[in-house]
Every structure is written in structure tokens, then in C-alpha cells.
């Protein structure tokens, strides 16, 4: 086993230099401590196109400008920290490979829309989480608890499987034109999470949640533009879930 000394440059998970291409990242920068105006700044990088957009942001932060600010944690599409608008579409930076978004032209990266920008790519997530909490996203049951588990058939479990996958990244809600125009709208993510419980055979809070979603800022604001479904990095059929909630409101069957 070989030994290393600290002088050796870090050996990255990158293949030989010949795989590198030059890509320009055009980032929307904003820091109210410095200037009240946001601005586009270009960063040309030598990078392997098989790397993630998140790797490129790290390269900029770690090698060029430490003030670049964004959220991230898991780096593989599971924690929901790094939803951003990449080439005009909401995506997770850690789940988007450079080669998949045409590196020939400058790649634009800006914060998700409809939530206040606090610094660079960081937005205020509080209104988003508040809408989530407002739909009572927890199991509601009555009566005595069983000693063992509640039974649920595989078919009943399957009924709400799709909406259990949500990682609360906000890509859907912040791609929704209704949400952009009216921040009061619950937005798709909250409805997805209400769906997750309304269609869970163990839950008894469906009526209460449906009343909340029936209000003026609820599901009826949805105009079925499908932006949310296209944006969801977990492949959740968001629009379908919203439609199912609407139908349940009409039929009161779920």
C-alpha cells in the first residue's frame, strides 16, 4: 500500500485530463450585504462533463470564489437541499450531470422562483414548510392502538406509494405559475403530502385535510399546467396526485 504526503494534490474522482471540457457557468449572484442588486456572473471551468452541476458549484466555491452560497448535503438526490433553476428548469444540482444539459452553451443557474432570495442560491424555505405543516402531514387515527402493527394489504400500501417519495425539495411548488403569482396558494408539494395521508388506509383524518384543501388557497387554484410533474426529481406524478385530491373532494371517496 502506497503512502501519501500532504504535498500531493488531491486526487479527484476524475479521469485523465483529456476528458475535461470547458463549460461556462452563468450564476445569478446576490448578496444584500454587498449590493441590493442581483447580477449574472460567468465562471468558465475545465470540468468532466460526467460530473454533477453540484460538483461545478463546489469547484467554483472551493477554487475561485468562496463567497458563492448554496445549500447541499447528501449529493445524490435524497435530502432535497439543492433545488435550483438550471437552464430555466427546476432541478437538483446533485442529480443533474453536466453532459445532460448541453454544455456547449453557458449553463445558467439561479435560485428557485417564488420564495424570497436571501443570498445567491439560498431562498427562504419557511413559507414552503409552513404550507406543508398546514395540511396536517401526520397519521391521524382514533380508538385504541393495536398491540401489534396495523394491518395493511400490499394493494392498500401501493395506493399512496408514489407520494411517499417526496423529499420536500420545493422544485414543484416553485415551478408553479399560480404559486409565483400568489404565494398564499398551498402549492403542489403540500398537496402531495396531504395525498400521502388521505389515501393511506390507516388514516382517519382525510375529511379534515380535505376541508383545508377545499379553502380558497387550496387545490382549486391548480390549473393543471404539469410544470410540477416535470420538475419533480423523484418522478412523482404530482399533477395526478392533485387530480386525485380534487376528485376526492367532489366524491368524498378515498
Amino acid at each position, binding site marked *: 500500500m502506497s503512502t*501519501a504526503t500532504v504535498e500531493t494534490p488531491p486526487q479527484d474522482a476524475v479521469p485523465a485530463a483529456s476528458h475535461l471540457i470547458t463549460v461556462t457557468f452563468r450564476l445569478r449572484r446576490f448578496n444584500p450585504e454587498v449590493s441590493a442588486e442581483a447580477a449574472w456572473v460567468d465562471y468558465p471551468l475545465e470540468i468532466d462533463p460526467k460530473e454533477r452541476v453540484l460538483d461545478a458549484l463546489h469547484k467554483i466555491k472551493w477554487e475561485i470564489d468562496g463567497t458563492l*452560497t448554496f445549500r447541499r448535503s*447528501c449529493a*445524490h438526490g435524497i*435530502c432535497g437541499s439543492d433545488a435550483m433553476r438550471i437552464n430555466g428548469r427546476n432541478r437538483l444540482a446533485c442529480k443533474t450531470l453536466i453532459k445532460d444539459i448541453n454544455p456547449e452553451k453557458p449553463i445558467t443557474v439561479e435560485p428557485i422562483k417564488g420564495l424570497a432570495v436571501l443570498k445567491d442560491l439560498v431562498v427562504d424555505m419557511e413559507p414552503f414548510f409552513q404550507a406543508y405543516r398546514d395540511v396536517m402531514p401526520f397519521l391521524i387515527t382514533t380508538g385504541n392502538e393495536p398491540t401489534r*402493527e396495523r*394491518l395493511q394489504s400490499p394493494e392498500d400500501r401501493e395506493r399512496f406509494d408514489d407520494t411517499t*417519495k*417526496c*423529499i420536500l425539495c420545493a422544485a414543484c411548488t416553485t415551478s408553479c405559475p399560480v404559486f409565483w403569482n400568489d404565494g398564499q396558494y398551498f402549492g403542489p408539494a403540500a398537496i402531495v403530502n396531504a395525498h400521502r395521508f388521505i389515501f393511506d388506509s390507516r388514516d382517519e383524518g382525510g375529511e379534515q385535510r380535505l376541508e383545508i384543501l377545499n379553502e380558497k388557497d387550496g387545490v382549486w387554484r391548480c390549473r393543471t399546467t404539469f410544470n410540477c410533474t416535470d420538475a419533480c426529481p423523484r418522478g412523482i406524478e404530482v399533477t395526478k396526485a392533485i387530480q386525485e385530491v380534487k376528485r376526492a373532494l367532489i366524491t368524498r371517496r378515498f
Partner: protein
Amino acid sequence: MQIHKYDTVIVGAGGAGMRAAIESTKRSRTAVLTKLYPTRSHTGAAQGGMAAALANVEEDNWEWHTFDTVKGGDYLVDQDAAEILAKEAIDSVLDLEKMGLPFNRTPEGRIDQRRFGGHTRNHGEAAVRRSCYASDRTGHMILQTLYQACVKEGVEFFNEFYVLDLLLNEVDGVKRASGVVAYELATGEIHVFQAKAIVFASGGTGKFFKVSSNAHTLTGDGQALVYRRGLPLEDMEFFQFHPTGIWRMGILLTEGARGEGGILRNKDGERFMERYAPTIKDLAPRDMVSRAIYTEIREGRGCGPDGDHVMLDLTHLPPEQLDAKLPDITEFARTYLGIEPYTDPIPIQPTAHYAMGGIPTNVKGEVLLDNTTVIPGLYAAGEVACVSVHGANRLGTNSLLDINVFGRRAGIAAAEYAAKHDYVELPERPESLVVELIEGLREGAGTERASDIRGALQLTMDTNAMVYRTEQTLKQAVEDIAELKRRYKNVSVQDKGRRYNTDLLEAVELGNLLDLAEVLAVSALARKESRGGHYREDYPTRDDVNFMRHTMAYREVGDDGTESIRLDYKPVVQTRYQPMERKY
């Protein structure tokens, strides 16, 4: 600076922190401080499952589970703790189900269970179905369900608050915890939280390795800050390398893939695990499989032009089974490698995964000051802690279990302690250490970049302190880390602002990684034997005469300010199982 007062303060909102918070909020005024939004915690990345001898699909019982845990941990496990873990597993899975966790179900509607490495029937006869799971998203479901339960319970969170110091004070000659100091990311403001009871649940420290399944944010903050306050760290040399990380990236592909029938193959297509663990083959414990992979690679049977990886083969499994049981990991292969797992094997290599060591606690979650004395009011649970239920090697699915069992215990114990005790007075200028640290980095005129030092640290750790270790490699690591610590004194950050200064916090996190890497390397150098996840090529066998004991590492500061590490040892609690040779 702001001062807050709570009965109980919990540091961290992953599985352990939120499980604790649900209990302590019912019983005491509780604040949860977390550097990430709760649902961003790395518990959400766990895939395979949570162990419990429910016996829903075949015969099983908690005693077999205890035995497997002890044997899997190469007998360094404290057996009283392992017994609690296995017994309380059953209720902790049922509790999660009652909170709403959508487990996969059997045709009868019960919680389904599947096989996982090292979990066996009747003391090693054959693999047993013990892992309760929700597809390959068990951790995601646990994290979401616990957060949902916290919303229901009205748990009070302080999101994006980085805890950077623990406040201790002596009362009548007894060291007691009086609070923590936190840095608010949004504003740069310092907050002191005075509390009667404090629970550390701040997770792992895998980011000192380059190839790692851990999130960027797993930087061992909790371990490092208590260590700096003179408290010991236990068994830090035991770090788990998971056999199946995506080649070069380290992203985890769950052991559940092998539980579902996946096979590891070398460049000749051979199912090489048949040679290393004839009975349970690909489902041998992780330390053994990781070593087997590196042996194949070193002996020239690795795949690819550089022969530096092996293959995880799922191609013989029906696509419907992959879609139903392993949807996320098959998607990782498609997204990050452009590989279709229905038809092509996936290149993998061992990836740094889990810290068996951490802050020593007893089975109530109380933190130890030395081998026997507890610090009243201070608790730890989850990956940050060392109870020790995992010993020298954790079995898969035992950590999601650990965070639930011991998170719950710590939450209850902390709240009950808070109900019976008063506040301990804060030390004078409680914020001073944190202010010094932050301002030192912000104002520093040094020329070093944190990212360069972190890269060099990860390189030396991957090269010298991974699956195979020797005296020579570990000495190299110790030397390299010492040099990096010297360079770290000269670090400065580019972002001098107060608002969302992640540049600054990354530099703080690096300081934590450096201290913990040093403890790992020094502890490993002193352990001249091979046991579980710690393998010394120069001492290839287990040595129960000299090393059947836990390492306890203390930070010492000399009169002239020089720092050093003092190693001490703690006996292992053995109850029913005598050490045997570990064969599978």
C-alpha cells in the same frame, strides 16, 4: 448575542434527535438545534432496513439477534447494550408503524422482512429475514415519519443553527453540563442555550474520507466539540467500509441488493465470496466483504482497465423485483453511471460508511467522563454516540435501530432529569470560545484554503487508514494530519460576511474533521491486532488477551499549550457469549 433557556436541548434532528425530541417534548420544554432542516438529515439516505426479530415471515427471536450483533461486532460489543437493542427493536419498529411509517407489507398485511448481512437463524445456521423495510428508502421513510410526528407533537426547531461548543461547569466538584453555544447561519449571530439536560444527536463523521457514502455535512461536530472540552472518545479506530459504493463516487448501493439475491463478481465473472464465506457468501458482514473485494483487486482480479473495482450483478433478478424492492439504487446507477442494471452489472468499491466509535455513553444514553463516571445532564444517541452496540463492526440495519432505541431512551432520560434538577450556572462569558474560533477564521489573514486541506486529508485517510492498515501507513497518516493541522492554523476564508456564511462554517467543520482523523489514526496505531472494521496487515489476527477492550482517547493540553492524545482503555461488558472465532 442571545441567551435562551430550555429544560432540554437536543443537538441534531436526524433519526436519533427527532426520536429523542418526540419523547422529551411530551415531558419538558425542549428545543432542537440543527444545522440542517430536519428532513435534510442523512438518516434520509439509509436504504436497506431496520432490524427487529418480529418473526413476521419466519421463525426468529431477539436472542438470536443479540448473538448476531455481538458476533458481527467481533465481540467488542457491550453485551448488556446489545441485548437491550435487540429486545427493544420490536417495539421500536411497531412504534414507527403506529406513527404512520409505510413499511412494505406481506400478503397478510404484516410488516414485510428481508435478509441482510450477518443476521442469521439460530446462531449462524442460515440467513434470516429480520430487516423491516420500505422499498430501498427505509431511512427516508423513518426521517419523514419522525418529522411528521414532531410536527404533530409541536416540537420546537431552530433550523440552520450550528452548535459549536458545549458548556461545562463544576458544581460541588462534579462536572456538569450547563448549555451549548450555537451559530445562526442566516445572521451570523451567536446564541447561548442554557439547559438542564442536553442530548447530542449530531450524527457521523465520514467526510474525512474521500470515497464515502456520507453527506458533505457529516463532519463529526458533536464528537469534536466534546473532545475539545476534555471528554473522551471511544473506539474511534473502528470505522466501517461498506462493500458496495458506486465506483469512485462512493454513493451507497444497499446491502439489500445482495439480500434480494445480488451477487459480487470479479473480472472473471467468479462469485468470489464463495471462497471467503462459504455459508452465507455475499451476505457476510461488511468488514469481511470489503476485505475480500480488496484482496481480489490486489491479486489482479479487479475489473476495468485499472483493475480497481468489482461488479455488483443484479442482471439475473427479474426487473419487476428490482422496480419493487430496489427502485432508488437502480436509478442511481442509471443517473450517475449511465448503466442499466436490468442488463449490466454495476461497478462498485468499498466506501467509508459508518463510525462505530463516538461519544461513550451507558445504556441510558448518559455521557461518560471516564470509564465509569457520568456527566449529570449530558446525553448522546445515534451515530455520534458509542454505547457500544456495534463493537468493532456494525451489522447492516442495526443503526436505524440504534437511533430509534437509544434516541428514545436518551429523550426520556434527559426530560426526566430536567424535571428533577435545576439549571447549572453558565460559565463566565459562555460564548468566548466560539467567538474566538469564528472571528479567528473570519479575520484571519492566512493563505491556506480549507478546501485544499480537506482534499489532502481525504487523500491521506483513503490511502493510509482505510480497509487495510499497517504501522507504516498509520504513521504516515498521523504525520500528514499533524502537518495539515499546522496548515489549518493559517486558514482564512474569503467570505467575511455575516449572512449565510457557508465558507466560514466549512472551515469550522474542517477543523473538526482534522481532530477526529487524528484520534482515529492514533487509536488505530495503538491497536496492534485485527478486529472487525480495523484490519492490521502487520497484526492479522484478533488478540483477545491484549485488546479485548475499548479505546478511550482524551485530548491533553500541556502547560506550554501543546496538544496531545492520551489513550486509555475500558473493559468490554460480556454477559452470555464467550468470544469465538468469527466464521460465516
